[in-house]
């Protein structure tokens, strides 16, 4: 347990020591998105009856920031340690596979939640979304951050250089999050793109999260929970297995 606690605390301290970059910058970015999109679209678009576009956008932006930061935390920590070589100090001690896995993932979840809370707080200036089902909000926030933290862990372990990690981030994570209904309700899309969105697990995470706020969403929260849960489980299995086998960590 002490090993887990120490690694968890070390990972928290790692991002907290550079919090301008890891916490404040994403909050500012999300606020800018909101400022611009709300200014342009608020009077033209009403995603659900009685829901203003600005209010609709806030949970999506908060979740997008959470997902991207949870991913960044594990992936950049692992790849930096791998490339500078100091990962050896984590690999030599008797940490169990589970301690290793859980410490990295939970620290990234904490960063995701802090960023998400920050985005929500700042955007309260623009609009106050209702919170119909706080438990759904919390469940989807935690699941979304955990899934992306694990994906970041996998990417960090897989990538041999920063360029490969950037490719993973720009060609997989960015499209998955941007095309998941952060900025729109997928019901507004043509049927083909609606069908494509239905295959994007991130869509279910954001949709379920939004249901928690408005009590309405594109799909049932139970379906969203099932899909997100299955994705999280599959990723957790894969991530844990990679650590256990020592893939690209122990040669």
């Amino acid at each position: 347990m002490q090993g887990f606690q120490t690694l968890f605390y070390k990972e928290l301290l790692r991002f907290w020591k550079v919090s301008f970059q890891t916490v404040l910058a994403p909050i500012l970015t999300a606020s800018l998105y909101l400022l611009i999109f709300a200014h342009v679209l608020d009077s033209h678009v009403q995603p659900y009856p009685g829901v203003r576009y600005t209010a609709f956008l806030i949970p999506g932006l908060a979740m997008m920031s959470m997902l991207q930061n949870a991913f960044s935390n594990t992936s950049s920590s692992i790849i930096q340690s791998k490339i500078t070589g100091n990962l050896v100090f984590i690999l030599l001690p008797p940490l169990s596979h589970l301690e290793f896995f859980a410490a990295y993932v939970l620290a990234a979840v904490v960063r995701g939640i802090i960023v998400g809370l920050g985005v929500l707080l700042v955007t309260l200036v623009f609009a106050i979304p209702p919170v119909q089902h706080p438990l759904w909000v919390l469940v989807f926030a935690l699941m979304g951050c955990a899934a992306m933290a694990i994906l970041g862990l996998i990417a960090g372990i897989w990538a041999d250089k920063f360029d490969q990690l950037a490719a993973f981030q720009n060609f997989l994570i960015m499209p998955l999050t941007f095309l998941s209904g952060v900025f729109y309700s997928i019901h507004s899309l043509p049927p083909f793109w609606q069908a494509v969105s239905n295959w994007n697990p991130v869509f279910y995470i954001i949709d379920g999260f939004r249901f928690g706020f408005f009590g309405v969403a594109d799909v049932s929260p139970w379906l969203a929970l099932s899909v997100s849960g299955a994705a999280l489980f599959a990723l957790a299995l894969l991530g844990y297995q990679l650590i256990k086998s020592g893939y690209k960590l122990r040669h």
Partner: protein
Amino acid sequence: MSAIEFNQVVKHYGQFQALKSVSFNVEEGDFFALLGPNGAGKTTLISILGGLAHATSGAVRIMGHDVATDYRNARRAVGIVPQELVFDPFFNVRETLQFQSGYFGLKKNDDWIDEILASLGLTDKAHSNMRALSGGMKRRVMVAQALVHKPPVIVLDEPTAGVDVELRQTLWQFIRRLNQQGSTIVLTTHYLEEAEELCNRIAMLKQGQLIALEDKATLLNKGKSRTLRIKLLDGTLPASLQPLVITQAGQQYDLKLSDVAALDDLLAQIKQAGVTLRDIEVNKPDLEDIFVETMHGTAA
């Protein structure tokens, strides 16, 4: 029980065979030198010991714990100082050592951390960020990191490469003390005089194979070659002996003899040439000579 057991350890990296069935033991209390040229497999062997690499086949045990099946107990029993100079730039020296203690399950370890810091001359650097330290200081911190959990077995992979004299002395003084207190030490180095001075047992690896494993005294007695130092009173060294000359200073020559038996023939040639000797001295080989002989396959 041996401190470390290597049992038919084989390691392949793709087509390349880094270790070809290496077996030997390091006994408790040994100060053990693992020698060999670059690429002989020393670091691969140490990586397998620390769980940084998996053996393709064979078994490795540390204090009786298998490094694969009982990896947590095996890792608790060993402290490894890696060869590459690496550090975490986010933290200062004390934080680095506190984290390392925590990874080994130790919560309150500051008394021992203070002792290590003092022994390695790091006390006044405790609050310096790792980035601000010189190379030698970073190396000391890496040694300290390997010792936070008071491991019974300590492995140092070329700890003195590119390090100044002062650190070498501080380091060896400290490591010697740990050895006297019962720790088992394994050392790889290219400075053979260090191994000769410090170690009681010596293994040599070449191209992934163990080619020598002896007590130091036995090994040093095994070397067949001798260095002969002669001073001439008059005359010059016969031309037939010129190929044997290692160094020459005035009338003093150091000659390389393949073995003691060659001495008779050499003296006969000198006598025949009518040269008078003023002084003669035969020297046994040191570890470096034996290392070279062994690596070239000329040792017994």
